[in-house]
């Protein structure tokens, strides 16, 4: 399978007066699993739709293996964007049976693996004779996951695949994703709001905030830069002086600050100070970066 990068340069998109993406640059390297996280309205779905030419950009360029994606069947055949069902009862897909929906997908995606699709449906306990509009939210998610995986597209984008799935089905999804990735080395971009349980699945994480890429880095490297320093207020203040403080929580004389710095810088700052230092997880890092001062109760 040929491996190519998917690249966006200077991407702009507005809906009416609302600027959703602002001069955005992004490169998706081949053979990795990316996590795409961002708050509601950050522009995740718009970005994924633009990357796969399901939506026209107002400005900028998107290329796959150096070739423009827009109206280019060769480039588009490399891509799969399995998006959430709109839920509109009158949409084209709504009246179809699951198996007919798979049949349409099999025509659309040239690498479609039919046997794999049925195997996946079975593992999710998805009844292929049911009509799409009779499925629960979780089962709809399963359909989009089956289409994404069975498309065998070299670059596959999933928009909130685990929304509506119970925890057992979510675990199954991560397992299936990693199984397929181990076998094929395909590129995946997965957007999600359920950050912490998926963090270990992502080799790299992309944080989208208010229409631009705030961070794009190997997950563990990013997380390792953030620390929570806590203790008595004066000690914490002394330790954190000169460090970049992202958020602060206070309770009486107790204070906790989230800082971003390297390990050496941290060790220097807390030397001789009576404070505790705790690592953050990806979810906490995300809140520190994208919370914008909201919801910071201790």
């Amino acid at each position, binding site marked *: 399978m040929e491996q190519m990068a998917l690249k966006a340069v200077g991407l702009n998109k507005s809906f009416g007066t609302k600027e959703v993406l602002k001069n955005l640059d992004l490169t998706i390297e081949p053979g990795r699993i990316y996590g795409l996280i961002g708050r509601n309205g950050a522009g995740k779905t718009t970005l994924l739709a633009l990357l796969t030419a399901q939506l026209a950009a107002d400005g900028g360029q998107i290329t796959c293996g150096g070739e423009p994606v827009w109206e280019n069947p060769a480039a588009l055949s490399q891509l799969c964007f399995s998006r959430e069902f709109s839920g509109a009862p009158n949409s084209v897909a709504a009246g179809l049976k699951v198996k007919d929906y798979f049949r349409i997908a099999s025509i659309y995606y040239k690498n479609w693996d039919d046997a794999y699709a049925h195997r996946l449906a079975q593992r999710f306990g998805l009844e292929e004779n049911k009509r799409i509009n009779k499925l629960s939210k979780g089962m709809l998610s399963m359909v989009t996951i089956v289409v994404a995986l069975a498309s065998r597209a070299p670059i596959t984008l999933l928009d909130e695949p685990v929304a509506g799935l119970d925890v057992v089905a979510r675990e199954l999804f991560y*397992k299936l994703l990693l*199984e397929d990735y181990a076998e094929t080395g395909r590129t995946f971009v997965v957007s999600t709001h359920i950050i912490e349980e998926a963090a*270990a699945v*992502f080799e790299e994480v992309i944080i989208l905030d208010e229409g631009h890429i705030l961070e794009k880095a190997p997950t563990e490297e990013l997380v390792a830069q953030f620390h929570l320093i806590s203790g008595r207020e004066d000690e914490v203040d002394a*330790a954190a002086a000169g460090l970049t403080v992202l958020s602060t929580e206070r309770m009486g004389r107790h204070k906790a600050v989230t800082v971003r710095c390297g390990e050496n810088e941290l060790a220097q700052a807390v030397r001789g100070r009576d404070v*505790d230092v705790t*690592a953050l997880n990806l979810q906490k890092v995300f809140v520190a970066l994208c919370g914008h001062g909201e919801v910071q109760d201790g």
Partner: protein
Amino acid sequence: MNGTLNDQSSIYLQIAKMLEDSILRGIYQEGEQVPSTNELARQYSINPATAAKGINLLVDEGVLYKKRGIGMFVAEGAVALVQQKRRAAFYQQYVTALAKEAKSLGLGEEELTGMIRRAYSEAQ
């Protein structure tokens, strides 16, 4: 008290530690093959690159070695190597923390050593 780094360690370090534990317990014996990167990734729902990082750490330390095209194996002398490494960290990680906690609870040296003796004789 100095600022202490909490051991909410990275996943690749946890993978390395878990493999070490398994070697110490004889789950993987010297000369035997350990799970592949992909097997670990599936088992723990982690990215294969993370699993590989954990395995490579142990390769660098000489605990595991690679047979090209076959997989990863436990090196001869791996148990002794892991024990040696863990002993070096034992004092810092456990003993000093134990002494500090005992002091803050007002336990005397006699009481503490008595407790240690009892725990040691009860340990398997």
